């Protein structure tokens, strides 16, 4: 190969620098927060002078955070599971059948992507007040279902598209009824997409703040709402400590999903076979 010119070498070096900078900016916020979480002082400052674990202890012991975490789990479990079932059904119908209002229904189902979360939250708040519904878990769960449904729908729909129809045809040729085909072939082959969709929905729901702020009450507030209320009163690093735990928890979950399902499959980058 011909020796590279100075210009080419400079260009290659500049490329490396740009990539490094982009990567640095991606992890910068998380890095700053992580470092701030270990600050011994009761202020959110950077960089810290002395180090301590005490804000982690406080975050874990703070009652609002504890109930917020539990509430979040309840809301997330219900909303992402229901969204998975409803979303899968819609995805199945949209993929397999031709009907008149297909485009229209697709549009409505995907609309929460373009409607701001505070609009959805405010809407549900007004609606709940109008019909005299107490601000319990039900309204929070329903609100979250609406918000995560497009993501689940999309994930399952893409999996369905990628599913080679010859598997189902082979099963039918071997005498399997449509229900049997669905249970023994379609669902098992879609499992990575279904789990991926559920996981995606769960992470979104657990982190959702804007709409939750409107529809939760003191009794049902989720963790992000509890954090918001905390930060209005205090400005100590326990927020940062909580953030670190948040990131770590999500990372463990993703690593787990990657280990057992393959992240490529979950995100539908790879074909499932």
């Amino acid at each position, binding site marked *: 190969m011909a020796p590279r010119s100075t210009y080419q070498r400079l260009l290659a070096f500049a490329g490396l620098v740009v990539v490094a900078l982009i990567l640095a900016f991606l992890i910068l916020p998380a890095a700053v927060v992580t470092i701030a979480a270990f600050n011994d002082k009761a202020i959110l400052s950077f960089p810290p002078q002395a180090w301590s674990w005490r804000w982690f202890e406080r975050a874990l012991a703070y009652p609002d955070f504890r109930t917020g975490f539990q509430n979040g789990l309840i809301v997330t479990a219900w909303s992402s599971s229901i969204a998975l079932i409803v979303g899968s059904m819609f995805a199945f119908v949209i993929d397999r059948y031709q009907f008149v209002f297909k485009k229209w229904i697709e549009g409505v189902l995907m609309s929460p992507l373009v409607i701001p979360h505070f609009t959805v939250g405010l809407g549900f708040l007004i609606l709940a007040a109008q019909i005299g519904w107490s601000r319990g878990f039900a309204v929070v769960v329903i609100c979250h279902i609406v918000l995560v449904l497009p993501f689940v729908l999309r994930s399952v729909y893409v999996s369905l598209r990628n599913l*080679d129809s*010859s598997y189902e*045809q*082979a*099963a*039918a*040729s*071997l005498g399997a009824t449509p229900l049997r085909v669905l249970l023994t072939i379609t669902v098992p*082959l879609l499992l990575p997409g279904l789990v991926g969709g559920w996981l995606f929905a769960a992470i979104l729901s657990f982190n959702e703040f804007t709409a939750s702020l409107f529809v939760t009450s003191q009794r049902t507030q989720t963790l992000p709402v509890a954090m918001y209320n905390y930060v209005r009163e205090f400005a100590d690093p326990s927020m940062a400590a909580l953030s670190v735990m948040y990131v770590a928890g999500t990372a463990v979950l993703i690593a787990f999903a990657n280990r057992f399902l393959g992240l490529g499959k979950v995100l539908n980058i790879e074909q499932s*076979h």
Partner: protein
Amino acid sequence: MTEPAPTTSDAAVAFDGVTRNFAEVRALDNVSLAISRGEFMTLLGPSGCGKTTLLRLAAGFLAPDSGSVAINGKCVNDVPTYKREIGMMFQNYALFPHMSVADNIAYGLKTRRVPRHEIRKRVAEALVLVKLTGMDERKPRQLSGGQQQRVALARALVINPTVLLLDEPFSALDKNLRASMQIELRDIQRKLELTTIFVTHDQSEALSLSDRMAVMSEGKIRQLGAPLEIYRKPRDRFVASFVGDTNCLRGELIGIASGEAVIALGETQIKVGGERLAGALPSAKVDLFVRPERLRIGAPGASGTMAGRIAGLTYHGGHVDLQIACRACRDGLLLVRAAGDNAITDWPPGSDVGISMDAEGCVAFPAA
């Protein structure tokens, strides 16, 4: 070879006036075809000719727009796939990736609620049949292409189907493996006397495997017959050029007498069967189709030969393909297949040759 074609009622599978459209495209146009019990029927044609659509109609994956499909004399237009008792092999094998080899083969038996001990016995027998003993617990992705295909075959056979449907099952295999799998499939099919519909675009595969074959194009069956008949007596220009290699020579009709047509080819004349030239008048232009192995080359200038010059040759081991520049040939280059390899030394490129042909290997059609 010349057994009478089955009538619709005693056929294993019968298509009767079947038409099927996809949007604006007519995939099948009023096709009728009856396949007898135990017959190996090939549907041959280029992509888009309707052969796969016909197979899918038999499988029940598609319904005909008009006409009927019958299996064992019963119309199955309204019978869903899972009640049709068919065995099907797919181009990509469609082995269930989340099941072991044994579970794949057992799938059709489980849907039939066969008792568990019998399933075990029959799966074992099927594995012996396709020479895959000991592979029970493997997953499909751990198998080679040839092994996957055997599993697919075992899975389709273990349910004792009324009819076996094969959708280009060999297209993913390399040449050597393909040849041996073809022989194996044919042996199994004969042993079980299993009615088989085989879809392919590979004409040599069709010629070597079929009892009868249907050559299709543009949604129609162009010719139906035994391989030998199709190869020797193609009904039209499409069949002549699609099945096997062929040369098209430009000629002029001199006259037809007692079924024999005399055709002028440049300086020479040849007598061929005139059945495809009915109604043609003397001095009409005709196209003469000649198989490359029916042409012989000899010294230039001999009487009854056409003049040509060797343009090039391709060595194939068992035979040599010579490309010969010849004025009578429609596309200018004549393909001559010479057995052995003497032609390489006898007729180096650039030599002038005289080409002769035997009338047996020629078919004449009115010029297009």
